[in-house]
């Protein structure tokens, strides 16, 4: 009799729980609907880019949640450039959403952060790579899952230096974002002992990407654009808007490899990554969405898993309790990168290894061996604590 009572009470504490006991964790997803054109057909952005990653992580969280009486819902909120993002955030707020993933440009992240501050909303920035968001414009209620431009540039720079390709020809696009990324590469070169032998600007004159006859022109343009450069080891392309970098490989005047925005690219994920159990994640993703997992998918997956991880450790569905655990000293999340990812507590940037992908395979993963750090080697990527200008508010 006693034994059977004990067994019954154990059951009540474990296994899938009934709905009455389930605490719901609602997470918003502000989905940026403006799609930029891609140079390669293969790189056209899927309609659910990012969102799919968040959905998979919500599934993963729900599998775990059934043992803890927690359930996750993801509320997708598409927004366009002409929409009011703050109104979108408010409508999520009316559905009691305290945690919001944002797939938006930096200026909108900032608007949302300030709007969300009064109502206790935490923003998970899964797209904007702007260092300024983590530095002079940092906010206490924004968790940056996307890596910064300086992290990406450092990841590539370490590899190029390790490879003994220290002389770079920097080919820079004409968009404001490109200027920021070029700054990051200049900083990386200085930091790790590479040298930019020359910089060239590629002006975006508008128009379509590859067209029926565009190939002929490209074959003429790219050699001329790269002609007459001083001796260099590798061309580092800076082109966040896919204007020209994709045309560079095999078309440079001198036979040199291309890296940066084309060729060997620093990324948070690659569909070829299978180390550290990554094959399992790739399998789950392809099975659900019938396409390969992108970097943005991975950033969204990681953000959603961070929420799930903190909720299960804090054993709470309350956004405030979840964030308290996430910002505490014990937080870390596994994301198929061979080590726990943790948060930099001076600006809430997620520390993470960066993959270097050639588009077919993962060529290497930074930080590279030999780049040492007194706290964690992951802090050799991007702005470190002594350099930060962030004062969290």
């Amino acid at each position, binding site marked *: 009799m006693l034994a059977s009572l004990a067994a019954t009470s154990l059951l009540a504490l474990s296994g899938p729980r009934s709905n009455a006991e389930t605490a719901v964790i609602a997470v918003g997803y502000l989905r940026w609907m403006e799609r930029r054109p891609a140079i390669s057909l293969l790189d056209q952005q899927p309609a659910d880019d990012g969102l799919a990653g968040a959905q998979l992580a919500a599934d993963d969280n729900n599998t775990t949640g059934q043992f803890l009486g927690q359930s996750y819902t993801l509320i997708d909120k598409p927004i366009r450039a002409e929409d009011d993002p703050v109104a979108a955030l408010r409508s999520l707020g009316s559905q009691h959403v305290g945690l919001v993933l944002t797939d938006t440009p930096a200026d909108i992240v900032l608007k949302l952060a300030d709007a969300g501050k009064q109502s206790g909303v935490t923003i998970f920035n899964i797209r904007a790579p702007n260092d300024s968001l983590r530095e002079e414009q940092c906010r206490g209620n924004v968790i940056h899952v996307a890596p910064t431009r300086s992290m990406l540039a450092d990841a590539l720079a370490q590899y190029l230096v390790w490879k003994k390709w220290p002389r770079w020809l920097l080919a820079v696009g004409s968009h404001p974002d490109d200027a920021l990324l070029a700054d990051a590469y200049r900083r990386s070169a200085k930091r790790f002992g590479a040298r930019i032998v020359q910089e060239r600007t590629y002006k975006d004159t508008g128009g379509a990407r590859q067209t029926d006859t565009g190939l002929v022109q490209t074959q003429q343009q790219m050699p001329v654009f790269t002609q007459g450069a001083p001796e260099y080891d590798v061309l580092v392309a800076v082109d966040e808007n896919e204007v020209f970098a994709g045309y560079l490989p095999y078309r440079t005047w001198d036979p040199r490899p291309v890296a940066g925005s084309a060729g060997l690219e620093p990324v948070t994920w690659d569909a070829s990554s299978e180390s550290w159990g990554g094959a399992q994640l790739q*399998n789950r993703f392809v099975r659900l969405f019938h396409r390969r997992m992108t970097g943005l998918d991975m950033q969204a997956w990681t953000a959603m898993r961070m929420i799930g991880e903190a909720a299960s450790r804090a054993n709470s569905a309350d956004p405030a309790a979840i964030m308290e655990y996430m910002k505490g000293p014990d937080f870390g999340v596994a994301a198929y990168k061979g080590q726990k990812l943790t948060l930099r507590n001076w600006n809430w940037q997620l520390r993470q290894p960066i993959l270097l992908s050639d588009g077919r395979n993962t060529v290497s993963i930074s930080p590279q061996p030999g780049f040492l750090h007194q706290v964690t080697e992951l802090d050799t990527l991007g702005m470190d604590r002594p350099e930060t200008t962030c004062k969290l508010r």
Partner: protein
Amino acid sequence: MQTPMMLRLSLALLAICLAGDPARAFTAYVSNEKDNTISVVDLQEMKTIKSVPVGQRPRGIALTKDGQKILVCASDDDTIQVIDTGSLQITGELPSGPDPETFALSPSGDLLFISNENDNRVTVIDIADRKVVGEIPTGVEPEGVAVSPDGTTLVNTSETTNMAHFIDIARRKIVANVLVDPRPRFAMYKHDGSEVWVSSELGGTISVIDPASHKIKQKIRFAVQGLRSEAIQPIDIRFTPDDVTAFIALGPANRVAVVDAKTYAVKNYLLVGQRVWHLAFTPDAKYLLTTNGLSNDISVIDVSGPTVIKSIPVGRLPWGVVVSPK
């Protein structure tokens, strides 16, 4: 106390006398994840004597209770292959469910519990009938499986859910979930059933769980001078038959930790090959073998030292190892 010199001497003596030292008349079988082979290692000669082609991506490996058959997860073929230890031929398959990674046998040897990583479940197989007799939903990416010595309870770790699930084998039901540190890889009962140890690869810890109360009673941490803490990633755990000492493979730390299983104090770190994952004792418990994935070899630890006395080249990316009497 066995030194390499003494070992060589005794091996030489053995060769001369043609009298088998029963203590070392063992054969080890190593699954090579990248080669699609099993390496057959003669522990008397201390060398690989044969390489047996098997299915794709062989990982988990076990011996049937009678020692007649090797069971190996051919993960990418979604099957478990049965290999006859005498002929070294594949004689059959078991229905494993998709992407079987690793498994455990019941103490009676009739049931096999398999973790299916892609499907968040554990599959239960009746070995004699070659039939699936149960499927138990667990957390995300189930990995380690361990059966209690009395055969009543199964512990399954889920790598992304970060739990050790305690499952009542008779009812095929989860009775408790214990949250542990990130990416739990492996679970092991002490021989006396008093504790379950669970390794967390990315947490870098061992959680010592009381199987009666399902509470974590101790966490064991590791520190190796000159190594980043991120490089210390515990995987496999083995207890000596008297439960006095535990050996723990530390992955990319390239070391096996020697732990006092009563006080939980880490006594020593043994340098082995690169990325050490799985461990197996010889049946007499005098030697412990380690699979070193990145150096493509196994290390032989003399338990009495404990000291590492030999490394033996095997196939590429060795994953698991079992040892049988010859």
